[in-house]
């Protein structure tokens, strides 16, 4: 069980690769999208996720520079290019792969209400909207692992 709470592209990919990797090993996987993580399943936003260039020491650039117009887009473009080389799919295709692989995708009810989102704003492949209690009940099985991203 993976909980995705962030929408920067590195976090989204970490979550998707872990879920897909579990299925590849024959392990069941489910993702609970909460808070900013909901951006990864919003039809209008999922193709525009970015890498964080400000407040991210691993970018190895001064924070002031990271905040300049276009820097975030450029860094994101470069990262996506490297990913494509490794056959890592874009977010929309990755979501299709996860669904086809049998990964269950859940939206968080509270976060959905907080951001004033409707069910139609989220991808059609979503398996449903859950409360945190619903999610814990799904996780209530022996051998379940939970990862918070």
């Amino acid at each position, binding site marked *: 069980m993976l909980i995705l709470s962030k929408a920067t592209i590195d976090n989204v990919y970490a979550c998707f690769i872990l879920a*897909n*990797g579990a*299925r*590849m090993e*024959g392990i069941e996987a489910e993702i609970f999208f909460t808070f900013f993580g909901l951006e990864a399943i919003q039809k209008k936003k999922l193709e525009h996720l970015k890498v964080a260039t400000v407040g991210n020491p691993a970018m190895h650039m001064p924070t002031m520079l990271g905040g300049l117009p276009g820097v975030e887009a450029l860094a994101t473009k470069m990262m996506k290019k490297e990913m494509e080389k490794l*056959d*890592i799919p874009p977010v929309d295709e990755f979501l299709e*792969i996860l669904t*086809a692989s049998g990964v269950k995708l859940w939206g968080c009810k509270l976060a959905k209400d907080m951001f004033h989102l409707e069910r139609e704003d989220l991808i059609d492949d979503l398996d449903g909207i859950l409360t945190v209690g619903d999610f814990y009940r799904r996780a209530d099985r022996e051998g379940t692992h939970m990862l918070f991203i």
Partner: protein
Amino acid sequence: MEKLFAGVSVPVNDEGYLTDFNAWNKEIGHEIAKEEGIDMTEHHWKVIEYLQQQHKNDVPLTIRRVGKSGVVDIKGFYGLFPKGPLKTSSRIAGIPKPASCI
């Protein structure tokens, strides 16, 4: 390590993957599939042939690439080999376990 499949002793690694693809034949594939609990059909063999072809061409295998092969889509791939499609099918095909995270 050697293991006996269909009356032939073949070299395998500790995970049961053939270490020499040339030692593979269809009967060995059948025996490995039986171990994996898979009843091989025509469609299973088509996927195996595709994987072997990619292996011969030195193309690294990923689920995404298999899904785009035209031989099987991703959902179908999981349907044919439910317990980890890429690793199970590679083992039956007599090729190394793919070192892929996607």
